[in-house]
C-alpha cells in the first residue's frame, strides 16, 4: 500500500500517545517524509524502519558519558523529582558494580523524607556494601562530605550518592543540590563524577522542565529512565536528549536489585515503533 497523509497521521498519533510531544512529533514526521522522498520509498511498509532510524539518531547524537576510571575514586550522584526511583537505582548500581569486582560505598544524602535513610540502609545491607548516613534533617552536603572522606579512607572505587527527591521548581532545594555538587567537586579533586537525572517513564511534557532545571543546578552527565516495565513508553526522552544532548545510561525495569539494564537506543525505539 502506498504511503499517504492518513498513514503519517497514524504515525504521528502513535508518537504523541507515547509522550514524544506534539512539537517534536511534528518535526519528526517532516523528517521521515523527507527521508522517504530522498530514498524514493513510497510504501507504508517502509515507514517504520525509516522512523526508527530518525528516532535512534536522536538518541545517539549525544556527548560521551563519563567513564569509570580505575585506581581513582569515581562518584555517581542520583538526582530527580520525588518518587522517580533514585534510591532504588542507587542500590541497583551498587549491586552491579560490586558484582563487577569494584569496592562500592553508598551515601544516604536524603536526610529529609521519612525513613529515606532506613530505605537505603536496608538495600546496603542486602547487597553487602558500606553506607554513610546522617541524622534526620542534617545538611545533605555534610553527609556527602563525610561519605567522600570515608570513601577515600577505605580506598573505595565508587561512591554512589542518593539525594532527596525535589520538584525542579523549588528554588531553595535546587540550590541545595548545587551545594552538594560543589562539595563533591571540592572534596574529590580529580575524581570522575557522573551526575544522573532519574526520570520516571510515566512522566509527560514536564520532563523537559525537569531536565533543563536539574541540568542548570548540577550539570548532568547522564540520564536514567525508570519503570519501563510498566505501560508507559517514555517518549519524552527524545525531546530531552534532542535538546540537551545528554547520554541515556540506564533503564529500570523492575523493583528488584537486578532490574537495571544498559540503555539500548535500538531496543528503546523499537518499543515505540514496532
Amino acid at each position, binding site marked *: 500500500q502506498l504511503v499517504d497523509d492518513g498513514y503519517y497521521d497514524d504515525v504521528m*498519533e502513535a508518537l*504523541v*500517545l*507515547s*509522550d514524544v*510531544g*506534539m512539537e517534536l512529533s511534528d518535526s519528526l514526521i517532516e523528517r521521515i517524509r523527507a527521508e522517504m522522498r530522498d530514498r524514493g520509498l513510497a510504501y507504508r511498509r517502509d515507514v517504520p524502519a525509516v522512523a526508527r532510524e530518525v528516532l535512534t539518531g536522536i538518541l545517539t547524537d549525544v556527548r560521551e558519558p563519563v567513564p569509570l576510571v580505575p585506581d581513582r575514586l569515581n562518584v555517581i550522584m542520583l538526582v530527580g*523529582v*520525588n*518518587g*522517580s*526511583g533514585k534510591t532504588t537505582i542507587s542500590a541497583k548500581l551498587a549491586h552491579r558494580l560490586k558484582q563487577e569486582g569494584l569496592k562500592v560505598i553508598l551515601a544516604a544524602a536524603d536526610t*529529609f*523524607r*521519612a*525513613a*529515606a535513610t*532506613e*530505605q537505603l*540502609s*536496608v*538495600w546496603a545491607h*542486602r547487597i553487602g556494601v558500606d553506607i554513610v548516613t546522617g541524622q534526620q534533617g542534617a545538611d545533605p552536603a555534610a553527609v556527602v562530605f563525610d561519605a567522600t572522606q570515608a570513601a577515600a579512607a577505605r580506598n573505595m572505587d565508587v561512591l554512589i550518592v542518593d539525594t532527596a527527591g525535589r*520538584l*525542579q*521548581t*523549588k528554588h531553595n532545594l535546587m540550590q541545595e543540590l548545587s551545594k552538594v555538587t560543589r562539595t563533591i567537586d571540592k572534596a574529590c579533586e580529580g575524581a570522575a563524577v557522573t551526575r544522573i537525572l532519574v526520570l*520516571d*517513564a*510515566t*512522566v*509527560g*511534557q*514536564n520532563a523537559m*522542565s525537569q531536565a533543563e532545571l536539574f541540568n542548570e543546578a548540577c550539570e548532568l552527565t547522564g540520564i536514567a529512565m525508570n*519503570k519501563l*516495565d*510498566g*505501560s*508507559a*513508553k517514555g*517518549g*519524552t526522552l527524545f525531546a530531552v536528549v534532542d535538546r540537551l544532548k545528554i547520554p541515556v545510561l540506564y533503564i529500570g525495569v523492575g*523493583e528488584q536489585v537486578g532490574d537495571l539494564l544498559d540503555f539500548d537506543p535500538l531496543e528503546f525505539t523499537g518499543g515505540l515503533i514496532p
Partner: protein
Amino acid sequence: KMQDRILGALKNMAKSGRLSEADVEKGLREIRLALLEADVNLSVTKKFISRVQQKAVGQDVLGQLNPIDTLVMVVYEELTELLGGKEYDPKFDPGVKRIMMVGLQGSGKTTTSGKLANRFKSEGKKPLLIAADLSRPAAVDQLQVLGKQIHVDVFADPKSNPVDLAKNGLKQGDKDSNNPVIIDTAGRLAIDEELMDELVKVKEAFKPDEILLVVDALTGQDAVETAQRFDEKLNITGIVLTKMDGDARGGAAMSMRAVTGKPIRLTGTGEKLDALEYFFPDRMASRILG
C-alpha cells in the same frame, strides 16, 4: 493565556471581527495543541474538541461580535464541567470509615495517607493507619515516622501479609474505636495481574467506603491506561492528584476523569503533611488551559 494563543493563530482574522468557519478551525487547533502540551490524552482531547466545536457553532460564535472570548468561554466551561462542574463538592461523606490507598510506585500513597490522617485528626476524629506495604524497603518505617509526627496510631506487622493486615487492622480499629481506618498499600504496575489481584483480595477483606487512586500530576499519556485498569479491577471511588506544587499543568486529571467518570477529590501540594487541598474543577481548568 488561551485568549492570546488563539488571537495569535487568527492574526489575519477578517477585519469585520467576525469568525469564519476556517477561523474557528484554527482556534480549535490551538486549543488542541494546548491540551496535548498539558498532557491531556490524545483521544480524550479529540472528543473534547469535537464537543466544543458543536457548542461553539451552536452558540453561533460565527456571528458574534466578540467571538474569541466566546470560544474561550465555551472551552473553559466545557472543561470545568468535565472536571466536575462548578457546584462540585469534593468532601468525603461525614460517615466515611474505611479508606484504601492504591496506585503506581512512587505516586505519593504513603505521604497522602499521612496527610489524610492529619486532616481527619484536625477534624476531631481518631484515625488509624494500616501499613500494608511489606515489599518496599522501609515502607512500614516511613508510615510509622509519619504517624508519630501527627500522633496517629499505625497498625503494622512486618511478618504478616496485606490481606491479614487489612482484617487485623480493622479489628484493632474497632477495639480502639478508631475512625476512619486508612490502609496504605504497596505501589504496583497496573499491568501486573498478580499484584492487582492482591488488591482485589485486600478490598474484599477491608470493605472500604473509599478507594482512592493516587496519581502523580506529572504523568503523561499513560494516565488513561493506569486509571482504566485500576478502576476496572477495583471500582475506585476517587482520585488524588499529587505533586501539584510543581509546574506540570496536570492534564492527567482531565484524562482520568474523562475515561473513568470518577471524581478527583484531593490534590497534594507539597511534601509536608498539611499540604493537602480539596479539588476545584474551575481552578484546574484554568491551570490545564494555561
